[in-house]
């Protein structure tokens, strides 16, 4: 197991390098002089030169790259030009709503997806299964921000059940906090529930064809016990792999959904930073989310190996 962990960690190095170089290059994709673009046409030559120096853009690009990695490895994501504080601090301030939203959406998605996926597999080719597959496709075909807009129209405007927009901190009560996140979480969960449910269905179908399930049935175990004790537990292991991916998708989808619901999360931070041309913040958030994704996938892989003893630690 230790060798497996070491191997997985070593495999991460090139991925993290590519992620880093890509994010580093973002600011260099800006057409023209990034410092001039950030400050706008009214800035004086001295101001532009000062910002260029502050961003390190006046050095050779390979020196910039090395210094950039050195800085990031220390946990320093640079400074926001508009907010006048470290990017890491800005991300920290905006992380709460996004983390709450993502966690709630993931919980909702799992709660719906796993039972329905298992049921669809058990009743494979039935009407339920067909309707289920259509719902799964519908889930991945609907833009979550549009679902969000419809939810607002239905449950915040027509029936005044939830607030139209805005965020309530959990410090002001769990109920209002959940209320402020309910609609965006449902909007986000719909897509993810589809992906997870399909995985749950497919892996349950695989497991139901296994010899040990046939043995369990032929020794007279009732279906509920076969499903609960033999099928679902084994089918959940492959399903776990999509949870890591789906969390990352949720973080990314949150960018757009937060805009619809005016939640002050990191998605909102990115969108505002785009109009402020605050590139260090954009870079910082993209890097942060990509690294969260890499770490989540690593954790899922390790958990997968720990849960399924058949996996070779090669």
């Amino acid at each position: 197991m230790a060798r497996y962990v070491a191997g997985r960690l070593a495999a991460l190095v090139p991925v993290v390098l590519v992620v880093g170089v890509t994010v580093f290059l973002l600011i260099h994709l800006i057409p023209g002089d990034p410092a001039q673009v950030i400050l706008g046409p009214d800035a004086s030559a001295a101001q532009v030169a000062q910002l260029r120096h502050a961003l390190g853009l006046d050095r050779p690009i390979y020196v910039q790259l090395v210094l950039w990695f050195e800085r990031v490895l220390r946990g320093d994501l640079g400074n926001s030009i508009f907010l006048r504080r470290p990017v890491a601090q800005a991300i920290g301030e905006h992380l709460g709503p996004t983390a709450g939203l993502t966690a709630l959406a993931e919980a909702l998605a799992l709660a719906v997806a796993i039972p329905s996926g298992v049921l669809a597999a058990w009743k494979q080719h039935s009407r339920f299964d067909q309707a289920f597959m259509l719902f799964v496709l519908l889930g991945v075909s609907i833009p979550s921000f549009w679902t969000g807009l419809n939810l607002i129209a239905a449950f915040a405007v027509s029936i005044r059940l939830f607030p139209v927009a805005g965020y309530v901190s959990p410090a002001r009560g769990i109920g209002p906090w959940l209320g402020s996140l309910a609609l965006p979480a449902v909007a986000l969960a719909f897509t993810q529930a589809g992906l997870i449910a399909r995985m749950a269905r497919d892996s349950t179908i695989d497991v139901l064809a296994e010899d040990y399930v046939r043995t369990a049935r032929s020794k007279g175990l009732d279906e509920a016990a076969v499903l609960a004790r033999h099928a679902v537990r084994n089918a959940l292991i492959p399903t776990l792999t999509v949870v890591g991916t789906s969390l990352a998708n949720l973080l990314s989808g949150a960018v757009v959904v937060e805009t619809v619901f005016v939640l002050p999360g990191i998605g909102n931070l990115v969108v505002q930073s785009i109009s402020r041309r605050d590139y260090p913040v954009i870079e910082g958030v993209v890097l942060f989310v990509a690294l969260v994704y890499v770490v989540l996938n690593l954790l899922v892989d390790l958990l997968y190996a720990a849960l399924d003893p058949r996996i070779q630690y090669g």
Partner: protein
Amino acid sequence: MVEALLRLLVRRRPLAAASLGVLVVIALSALLAPWLPLPAPDRIDMASRLAPPSAAHPFGTDNFGRDILSRVVASGRVSLAIGLAVMALSTLAGAAAGLIAGYYRRADAVLMRVLDGLMAFPAILLAIALVAALGASARNEIVAIALVFFPRTARIVRASTLQLKERAFVEAAVALGGWDGRILGRHILLNALPPLIVQSTFVFAEAILADAALSFLGLGVRPPTPTWGNMLDDAHIYVATAPWFVVFPGIAIVVTVLCLNLLGDAVRDLADPHAAAGRRARARRPAAAPAGVQGVPGAAPE
């Protein structure tokens, strides 16, 4: 050939066949938009702004009194064109990268690490950051979305290439002294086409969703040119007063993307009978080949 495929689709996957029909209607209406008997999409009529659906305006009117049906159809031109362009670009880049990585061992290690790195970014977020840097325009948006989606296509083509290059007909072509370009193009790419076509359908669908999200955030094609995404951006503040303004552009996105996904699923299952026969078969045969390459109609090996 095409007729036989269509008949197979109608018989075995009626829902997918219907999706194809809907897609043809959507594509034709987008293509023929200027000649359809609809009001001009940019005709402003402030007297009837935010009017609910009626005989004159089946989808209602927007905040400038413009006909929403006309605008949804006109948007289709832009949104579908962007989706097609992304599909073409990411399929070309993905096929090239996949063939090279699958065929040349040395290139494989480097290329796949780069692609793995790119895939570590959540798709929409990277596209947003790229457009934010490059500037909002149709061209930049297409490049950004294609860059985000091509690594997945490359992985699929690479997997096919790795399998195909071990097959006897490819080895025979190599032994006969065929040059690499011919082997890759004629023997490998042609046989790797079915999974590539299926993947392209999904990329098309995802590109339309990505375009909608970017346009909604003001990072796609800018008004006055309408797209489904920027219509929703205009519409979202009227969600309480004029829900039809929000509903119809969204339905256009959902119907298009859903039909593409249904079609892609059906073609995948038809092209790979193992997957269609249920995953049971795979569970019983642990050594079975992964989905997509064998038993594929067309492109018979020499």
